[in-house]
């Protein structure tokens, strides 16, 4: 049966990370899902809250009154959770579980949105080693028939400058090999910055325009660099920056050298990237952080202040952000912080 509020679907505690129920798209729905009359789904949230309240009527009028009040309270809590700003830190045991959790979250978001012709779900996408597991899971859900990308538009965060598009390390190649070639996305809806465009700033401005024309990003998925950067917004980037050309920091070049046979001279030194401001404009942001080498960056992003030297910290001020991590990534956090977020419901 389709559950309604988004929170109850996607809020497993670390103790039961794999219990996230997966939604099925309405067309492939099992008989159970069809049991709920369509009309109920279209009723506004407040009315649903009162329906919960009234459903519990029974017994004496006092009991009925009590249950009605309880129902109303529940309804308001639901409303609050839905519309209030939240920052969540979801901690899974290891990389695989974190990847699966993130993939299920994305999958559920898309299905709940019910994208269709003329009403696309817009997804921001990252590259690098962290999201690989998540992509694999999304491909699995697609191959199982549970998830279609037919009405999904994607916007990648960045691309190297000067690297041929068919170079095995370009982000175009990455996205093709690790994601696009396995799913049913329309090529016209897959947007990646062109690092070989004749005028790079024009390319960046056009990218911003495309995002705007698509109605903004519904869910921006990102990673974090060891120096706390989001996309290629290196330490020192403006927190209200837009898509632009950036020179890569030494930390990033070192981190990327492993993809270029360990030869630093082969690593591109410039890239086009969405700005911090661009990602902040998204309606929802999910940051994937796994591995002990990212732990310090996570600490700086969550427990210290908003600081342009650790650009992911900007998301402390985003109305709706989820940080998905594994245990290793929390190694630099205070025990108190970890306990708090693990206990959250």
């Amino acid at each position: 049966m389709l559950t309604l509020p988004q929170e109850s679907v996607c809020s497993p505690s670390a103790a039961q990370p794999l219990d996230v129920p997966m939604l099925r798209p309405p067309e492939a729905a099992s008989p159970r899902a069809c049991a709920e009359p369509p009309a109920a789904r279209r009723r506004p949230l407040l009315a649903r809250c009162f329906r919960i309240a009234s459903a519990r009527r029974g017994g004496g009028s006092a009991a009925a009154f009590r249950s009605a009040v309880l129902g109303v309270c529940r309804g308001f809590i639901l409303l609050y959770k839905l519309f209030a700003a939240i920052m969540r830190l979801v901690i899974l045991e290891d990389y695989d579980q974190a990847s699966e959790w993130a993939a299920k979250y994305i999958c559920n978001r898309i299905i709940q949105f019910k994208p269709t012709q003329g009403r696309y779900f817009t997804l921001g996408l990252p590259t690098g080693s962290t999201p690989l597991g998540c992509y694999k899971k999304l491909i699995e859900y697609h191959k199982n028939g549970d998830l279609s990308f037919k009405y999904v538009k994607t916007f990648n965060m960045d691309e190297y400058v000067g690297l041929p598009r068919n170079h095995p390390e370009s982000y175009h190649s990455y996205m093709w090999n690790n994601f696009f070639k396995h799913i049913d996305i329309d090529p016209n809806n897959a947007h990646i910055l062109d690092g070989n465009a004749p005028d790079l700033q024009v390319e960046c401005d056009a990218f911003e325009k495309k995002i705007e024309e698509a109605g903004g990003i519904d869910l921006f998925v990102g990673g974090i660099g060891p120096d706390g950067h989001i996309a290629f917004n290196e330490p020192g980037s403006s927190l209200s920056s837009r898509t632009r050309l950036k020179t890569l920091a030494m930390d990033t070049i070192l981190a990327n050298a492993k993809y270029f046979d360990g030869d630093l001279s082969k690593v591109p030194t410039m890239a086009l990237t969405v700005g911090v401001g661009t990602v902040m404009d998204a309606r929802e942001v999910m940051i994937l952080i796994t591995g002990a080498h990212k732990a310090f960056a996570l600490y700086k992003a969550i427990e210290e202040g908003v600081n342009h030297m650790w650009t992911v910290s900007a998301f402390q001020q985003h109305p709706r952000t989820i940080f998905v991590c594994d245990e290793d990534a929390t190694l630099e956090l205070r025990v108190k912080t970890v306990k708090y977020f693990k206990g959250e419901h």
Partner: protein
Amino acid sequence: MPSNKSVSDAPIAQFTNCRLLRGRRLQREDLWVREGKILNPEKLFFDEKGSADVQLDCKGCILAPGFIDVQINGGFGVDFSLATDDFRSGIDLVAQKILSHGVTSFCPTLVTSPPSVYHQILPQISVRNGGAHGAGILGAHLEGPFISKEKKGAHPEHCIRTFEENGFQDLLATYGSLDCIRIVTLAPEIKRSSEVIQELTKRGICVSLGHSVANLSQAEEAVQHGATFITHLFNAMLPFHHRDPGIVGLLTSDKIPAGRRVFYGMISDGIHTNPAALRIAHRAHPKGMVLVTDAIAGMGLAPGRHTLGQQVVEIDGLNTYIAGTKTLSGSVATMDTCVRHFLEATGCSVETALEAASLHPAQLLGIEDRKGTLNYDSDADFLMLDDSLHVQATYIAGEEVWRQDALGM
């Protein structure tokens, strides 16, 4: 999904759920085909924003480049060295039948024959693309008549000639025309062979050494003048000797010009060479191995007597002898049998076995940019094989030209 292709409106086929031979190994990738050529799907996606029009599930099969047979004398009752009235339909029949063996391109081979035969037959052979009508013809392989009398094998002695007198002119006079000749097998110890080899190589014709008693230095000299192939290694040549390895020594010779490779054909039917010899050759020079069938008219037919040029041969199982003797004369093995036998005898990888029948012959003939691989922009000549390398389906230029009936794919 609506496809929006800016380069061409031709339909795009995507073969999924398969393992294809690319980059010298079997990879889990899809094969994309458009207009008879293998398409780069990444380029299609990003540059043209295109997608597949039709998807075909290969059910886990291996996709390999079509086999190329550079030495086949006939089959199914057809003898390429026999000048008959319906020669053309004979060649068409063989071209069509070998599709089921996985051969998508071949070189019809003529054994030593009188000049009249060449003059009659060669104009009837034309280089042409393959298709539903049959495998493509890359050009003729003329095995003889400029060979050694001592190593004639099944070739008729009275037709053997030399070009000692007029060199290349003798060869021209014998064959008549050089159009559509792809390979010439000759014995390099014949006087003036160097100039003949040079002339042939200049014209883009591949020169092969065979039916010869040449020693290693004669063979090396021939290679230096342009020879690049050895016809059925070990057969019809001096045996390997540790002080004069003969033509066999070319496999490990250090006198091969830089940047060139000597290829050698082997009939891996289990009869023409002992599996141990097959292994020795393969281990000595794995990149030069070219599997050939050297099939004769009796291939595909019941045991009994058949013609081979001017001779009569007798088939008994997989063995073919000159009638009444124990001299081997061609084989009746099919190309896919040869590939399987090679795999089994050498214990090599599936990729190596497949390459010996596809990539290496293409490299020998200098056509690997369009045949013999599943690289992007290559001709879409490929096979669907099961794990034991039995051909399930044959495709030429992206069209299915043969299918194993038992499987209802």
